[in-house]
């Protein structure tokens, strides 16, 4: 396959950045999108140009490192697929493909296609956990969890923290990411004691980090490679309102 790539190049956070055009003449339909970039980078290196920087690690759709907007869509055109799992057989010979970083106010570009998603860690640090210091746990069977609850918790816990939801959102909101963690921990009996404090602290941190508010466009769930359902956001809103009410009552 012959492909034309238009790739965002930006030296560092302060650089303005611009699109650059490259051709790859020997792509194979069996390659993943990242392998296509590997081929491009090998070529650039030998030709004395700087290779394109991009985040990646597991290359099997689970670490959440890869993060590119391909032809205008975070992680590209395939449903429920991360960039590293996207294969070139979904493109056609002669295609022109644009590649840009995940853009959002809270995700500053570091270089080329690499962005800083540290704000996600800060949201988790603010309250995205159950306090269970090592050694303090009762037997695992002390608290049974109904299967449907456990399954719902799992579905939400499948989030890989990639940030595609933020990149897809016209407001740059991280509500899907946030709702996924709220739902995961809130579905479980172990998560109840901190349920209110968790949601208040995480929402505060979300807003402080510069993520926008949710206006229900639903773009996030379309882009999400792990198909996190939109109703985690409803859960987030319900928990948030309940927690605010509880706080007012105790104040």
């Amino acid at each position, binding site marked *: 396959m012959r492909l034309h790539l238009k790739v965002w190049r930006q*030296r*560092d956070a302060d650089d303005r950045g611009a699109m650059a055009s490259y051709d790859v003449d020997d792509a194979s*339909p*069996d*390659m*993943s999108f990242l*392998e296509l970039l*590997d*081929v491009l980078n*090998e070529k650039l*290196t*030998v030709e004395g*140009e*700087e*290779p394109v*920087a991009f*985040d990646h*690690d*597991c*290359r*099997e*759709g*689970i*670490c*959440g*490192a890869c993060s590119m907007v391909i032809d205008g869509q975070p992680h590209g055109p395939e449903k429920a697929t991360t960039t590293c*799992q996207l*294969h070139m057989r979904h493109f056609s010979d002669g295609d022109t493909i644009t590649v840009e970083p995940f853009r959002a106010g809270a995700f500053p570009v*570091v*270089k080329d296609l690499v962005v800083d*998603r*540290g704000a*996600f*860690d800060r949201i*988790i*640090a*603010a309250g*995205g*956990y*159950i*306090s*269970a*210091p*090592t*050694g*303090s*746990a009762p*037997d*695992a*069977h002390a608290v*049974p*969890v109904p*299967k449907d609850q*456990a399954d719902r*918790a*799992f579905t939400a*816990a499948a989030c890989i923290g990639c940030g595609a939801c933020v990149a897809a959102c016209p407001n740059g909101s991280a509500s899907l990411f946030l709702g996924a963690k709220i739902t*995961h*921990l809130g579905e479980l009996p*172990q998560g109840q004691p901190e349920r209110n404090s968790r949601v208040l602290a995480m929402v505060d941190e979300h807003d402080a980090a510069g993520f926008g508010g949710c206006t229900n466009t639903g773009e996030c769930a379309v882009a999400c490679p792990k198909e996190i359902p939109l109703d985690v956001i409803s859960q987030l809103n319900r928990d948030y309102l309940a927690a605010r009410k509880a706080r007012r009552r105790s104040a």
Partner: protein
Amino acid sequence: MSYADFTLGAPVADAAAPDGPIETRWERRRFGVKLVNPANKRKMHVIVVGTGLAGGSASATLAELGYRVSSFCYQDSPRRAHSIAAQGGINAAKNYRNDGDSVHRLFYDTVKGGDFRARESNVHRLAEISRQIIDQCVAQGVPFAREYGGLLDNRSFGGAQVSRTFYARGQTGQQLLLGAYQALERQVDAGGVTMYPRHEMLELIVVDGHARGIVARDLITGETRSHLADAVVLASGGYGNVFFLSTNAKGCNVTASWRAHRKGALFANPCFTQIHPTCIPVSGDHQSKLTLMSESLRNDGRVWVPERKGDDRDPNLIPEAERDYFLERQYPAFGNLVPRDIASRAAKNVCDEGRGVGPGGLGVFLDFAEVIGRLGRPAVEAKYGNLFQMYQRITGEDPYQVPMRIYPAVHYTMGGLWVDYDLQSTIPGLFVVGEANFSDHGANRLGASALMQGLADGYFVLPSTIGDYLATAKHEPVDPDHPAVRAAEDDVAQRIDTLLSIRGTRTVDSFHRELGHLMWEHCGMERTEAGLRKALDRIPELRKEFWETVLVPGTGVELNQSLERAGRVGDFFELAELMCLDALHRNESCGGHFRAESQTPDGEAARDDENFSYAAAWEFTGRGEAPVLHKEDLTFEYVAPTQRSYK
């Protein structure tokens, strides 16, 4: 003197393990460790390199105990450590199924599965702690699979005869890691842990014989600087990427361990690598990594190749009589469920005979037609739906219609830095946890046991044992201008300068691919003296070429991914040589190490306990210089060594 002319040094002994009845050794060791006064813990600083299951759980727990922790990872977030990719599950001797499991049985299975090349004391402790791990993870909110009654579900894994594997669909590693990561972030928020993401450790700092810090590079700015502490913990994972193609994440590397090895830490059993039988085969020269298909598929899939060489008909058109279900034929008792090393080698053999399928003849079929016929497609979909989807996404083929194609791939490394029972290396103050150490799996790791070991080390073992060192060592702060600190910083700066100034003609990846290919050919599934000698001749040549002609673009004061890779590959070259030497010297077959010269008349691995019942711990003497071998003798008091048989 050539590299292969190693010398034999003094034996190395595990001085930290208590003796006496094995069931009470851990209890007695925990009672024996000196405790650090809570007020002093706040003044003590521990560096943890790595945020996978081992490092993440260790950092969180040490901070909970009151130590000051600095935690490092090369990814942009600690949540992305390679542990995230583990699929199948985690073992624990809970015996919730009442099917005869017990601590002793898990201990027994692990010692036997490791082909009698692991320490009994360590393995027993691992089996004991396995139960607490599940409790801990459930309390953190890890969403393990449950049954309708609300209790935890279990499955049998990797041919175990009991159901002791806990799992969270096909994403067990992810869910366990998120549990540890969340506990870690909680401590970041509380001020106990300072997190350094996108930082790579490039050197260990040893002052007066004790590990006192690291030199790390900030991968965004390129700044390298030293970080000083009272003790250093390496939790930097395995080195399977020396083969270039493996199931490991692209960034997995040996640099942290290798730098410590160069500073005096012994490296044990480097040749013990695990090759996993069910991976998706290579599709072309562009291949950058290999994807594992969960072992659980072998519970229902049947492995076969065509009877006839070069038979390239559509598999569905090959009649039953012209198929060779080679595992069922060779191992009637275990069939498709034989252990990983045996299944891998059997697949290699039929491919070597020219009966492999798919591109290059490097693949065998894993066929679900029989189970789909028996249980119906919906039942198979419920069990394996996500795996079938993943396969289809990568290969473009529908496994409900045509058999999957699979081939073995490098997956895990049992070898690693030598540690004693306290998980302390031969450098005082340097502790090693998780896949980076050599301790518990002997010559072969059982499925679902790496996650168990990582969390046992990080949550429970290290936080106890490191206290003994810290309470005894009572260090003065290190002067940042101490000559040892300056020297370590200078070494790092010089190495980076060298890599950037060569400006040769060949890319880092092209060297890495060639090295990987060499290792796969000669130090992979089957090893021979001739092959290993060939590799030992070629590696130094290739390494020399690397240091003369590698092309690393860009500068050192920016995000430079080529430079990161170049440093890692530079260390892989040195490790590769040691792996080949270790494989050459171990003239026996055991676990994942198959020496063609040491096999039974029917082609099975022949262990040689008389000559090789030891862990081989190697001492570094200089790049390309013959190393020194220190043996740790292994004795078996509780599980009598037997030859494995799966016929």
